[in-house]
């Protein structure tokens, strides 16, 4: 279990290798990578800047990760979230979950992403091709996604 908030990119293979090395109880590794899309609301994107709340970000991510590991019997997990300026095609976030079986790995990965999206204090500001800045609005569907976990686990 570990969390990083960093400007630099991450390497998925290396992160998975670090998490799984030596633990042959792991039969399933699920990962999610979020990336900067080149278009937003029909307008082309020049770049994006990710602001966060240092200290609270790490604390929230660690708390979400801890909750996920307990709920889905994960053997290991990892969250990396980038901050600062990013361009279309760049990686934003990496979540890796390891478990004995794939059901737990997948559910843990989705749960972690859903909670990260609604609780971790990050804010995206997009810059369009003509230079205008615009703060990204929170998506209602992210709020909807997170409510599905509030029923008893399946």
């Amino acid at each position: 279990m570990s969390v990083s908030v960093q400007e630099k990119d991450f390497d998925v293979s290396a992160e998975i290798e670090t998490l799984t090395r030596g633990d042959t109880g792991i039969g399933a590794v699920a990962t999610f990578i979020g990336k900067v899309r080149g278009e937003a609301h029909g307008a082309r994107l020049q770049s994006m800047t990710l602001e966060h709340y240092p200290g609270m970000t790490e604390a929230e991510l660690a708390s979400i990760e801890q909750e996920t590991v307990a709920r889905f019997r994960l053997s290991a997990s990892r969250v990396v979230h980038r901050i600062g300026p990013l361009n279309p095609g760049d990686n934003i976030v990496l979540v890796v979950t390891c478990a004995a079986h794939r059901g737990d790995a997948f559910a843990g990965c989705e749960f972690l992403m859903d909670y990260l999206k609604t609780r971790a204090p990050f804010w995206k500001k997009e810059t369009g091709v003509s230079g205008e800045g615009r703060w990204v609005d929170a998506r209602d569907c992210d709020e909807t996604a997170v409510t599905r976990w509030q029923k008893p686990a399946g």
Partner: protein
Amino acid sequence: MSASATSTRRVSIRYFAWVREKTGRAEETVEIGPGILTIGDLVAWLRTRGPEYDAAFSSPGTVRAAIDMTHVKPDAKISGAREIAFFPPVTGG
């Protein structure tokens, strides 16, 4: 009334994303009066401090708050808070 109930308190406030841009500051330390008990009270008081604050908090229920780096609701008590933060709904991931 006891002394603590009448005295003012110093609290550090931080602003993020468009709340920061609208208030025009990233952080400040303010003296708040004894009548300000909750996040909601604090927001109401901040809005009286100038048009930039009023604009930042003008759409009700939009700006979120944290006390000492934990998400809280508008009715959360601020007694004992060292750092209060205001920000838009989060958009990471």
